[in-house]
């Protein structure tokens, strides 16, 4: 393992120090427990939008802290959900009488730790609600699994709920909006290579030189199946089919298409895949009204991409377009 790090155990803390100094206008980093907080938090009268999870998925979540998106992000150790006291520290730093929405990706660890945190917050008379996002169509949602994972849809959910909260929406409204977004967003990912967790020191899984993991999670967990490498046209078609057939998305639907790099995929390939996805959606009569292309929810250096589709209506489109100013997403301000 070659990495630009010092001590594997200190990676997250040292990286947060770099984030803090690079973006002092947007955010501050509290230590012990580590929390990334919007520079001007708590914002009076505003619902706080808080998210978090294991590190290694950057810019998720710290790169989305700022006006129009998150009030705080709670970074756990690499690929490890943060502990309840860290979540609680984020809530305490950002939440006033308007309450807070916790955005939780559906992983057992995240759900359990955020659940405990929400109980702690309730004990302090804070109005804290949680939503669990589970947009990954790779996993069969049944009582026989931990349920679908939260992946690319998380980025869109954080942007849209963040915009609503910034406009002054109530906690009830922000929570309802979050549930609506979760209901109409779907994702699928593929991996060409595995990530290497610093404290593990070896790739998270072994993939043959001609194999692709179809339906990969963002922690290098496996997906639906291992398939032979195939041309981009075929691979992206397989991904589009998986996502579109799930909701399903239908001809005439207006959507946001989010083509995400898992971290190690060159932009050249990412835009190539995006172009194919746009073409395939157009062929199905699905209207791409907004798009996001880039590395926004990653798995360390893993090569691979994910596609996320969100069904849009006027409300969601307006909230997507609303100004945002964070390290990773910025427009209109």
């Amino acid at each position, binding site marked *: 393992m070659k990495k630009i790090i010092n001590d594997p155990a200190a990676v997250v803390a040292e990286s947060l120090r770099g984030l803090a100094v690079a973006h002092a206008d947007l955010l501050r980093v509290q230590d012990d427990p580590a929390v990334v907080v919007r520079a001007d938090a708590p914002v009076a009268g505003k619902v706080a939008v808080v998210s978090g999870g*294991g590190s290694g998925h950057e810019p998720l979540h710290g790169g989305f802290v700022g006006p129009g998106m998150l009030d705080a992000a709670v970074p756990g150790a690499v690929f490890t959900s943060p502990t309840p006291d860290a979540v609680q520290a984020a809530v305490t730093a950002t939440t006033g009488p308007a309450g807070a929405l916790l955005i939780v990706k559906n992983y057992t660890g995240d759900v*359990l730790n955020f659940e405990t945190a929400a109980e702690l917050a309730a004990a302090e008379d804070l109005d804290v609600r949680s939503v669990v996002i589970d947009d990954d169509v790779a996993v069969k949602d049944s009582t026989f699994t931990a349920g679908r994972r939260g992946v690319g849809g998380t980025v869109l959910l954080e942007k849209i709920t963040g915009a609503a909260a910034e406009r002054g929406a109530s906690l009830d409204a922000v929570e309802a909006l979050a549930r609506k977004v979760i209901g109409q967003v779907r994702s699928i990912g593929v991996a060409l290579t595995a990530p290497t967790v610093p404290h593990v020191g070896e790739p998270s899984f072994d993939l043959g030189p001609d194999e692709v993991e179809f339906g990969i999670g963002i922690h290098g967990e496996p997906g639906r199946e291992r398939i032979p490498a195939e041309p981009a046209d075929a691979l992206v078609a397989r991904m589009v089919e998986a996502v579109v057939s799930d909701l399903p998305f239908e001809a005439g639907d207006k959507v946001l298409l989010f083509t995400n790099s898992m971290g190690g995929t060159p932009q050249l390939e990412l835009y190539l895949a995006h172009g194919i996805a746009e073409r395939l959606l157009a062929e199905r009569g699905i209207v791409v009204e907004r798009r996001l292309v880039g590395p926004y929810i990653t798995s360390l250096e893993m090569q691979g991409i994910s596609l996320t589709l969100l069904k849009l209506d006027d409300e969601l489109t307006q909230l997507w377009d609303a100004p945002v100013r964070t390290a990773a997403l910025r427009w209109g301000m």
Partner: protein
Amino acid sequence: MGCTAEGLAAALRAAAEVIAEHRTELIELDRAIGDGDHGENLSRGFTAIVSALETQVPATPAAVAKLAATTLISKVGGAAGPLYGTAFLRASAKLGDAAEIDVPLLLDALRAALEGVQARGKAVGGDATMVDALIPALSAAESTGGSVADVLAAAADGADRGAESTVDLIPRKGRASYLGERAVGHMDPGARSTALLLRALAEAAR
């Protein structure tokens, strides 16, 4: 003879050593069917317990167990942190203000720990989780006579068998469930760590 606060503290220190020794093994087990952090997470947690005990060993076994619980909850993260944390928290509640843990209290505590893990994680036997180590550990403990050490040794034996049994199971909870049938042939890391912990406690109680 039962187990005092000091005795439980010593047992936890011994457990921390065992976890540190098996850190890589647990990482490898988790890397195969999960995300590879289980060994790292638990070492971080038990190292923190040892530090916390350095400052002061609380007066009762219940207080020691509670310290372990809150430390695990605030240091481990992941799925294992809240689950093991809950196990110790529920056990602690059963221990009340007893100065020593005797066999009946130990069985109550083990039962409460299992119930806590199941309440939190919703896993049942056969889902290929730490629950599959805890269930046979508890029944072995319940059907054994003898000292606290004997009962713990029986529990550890049961947990070993339970951990072994997860090799053939299709996981239905936690990260490994995403693998489905592809996880068959691999031991569940949490079941393995449960067996390791019970063995360390049993050894320390001798």
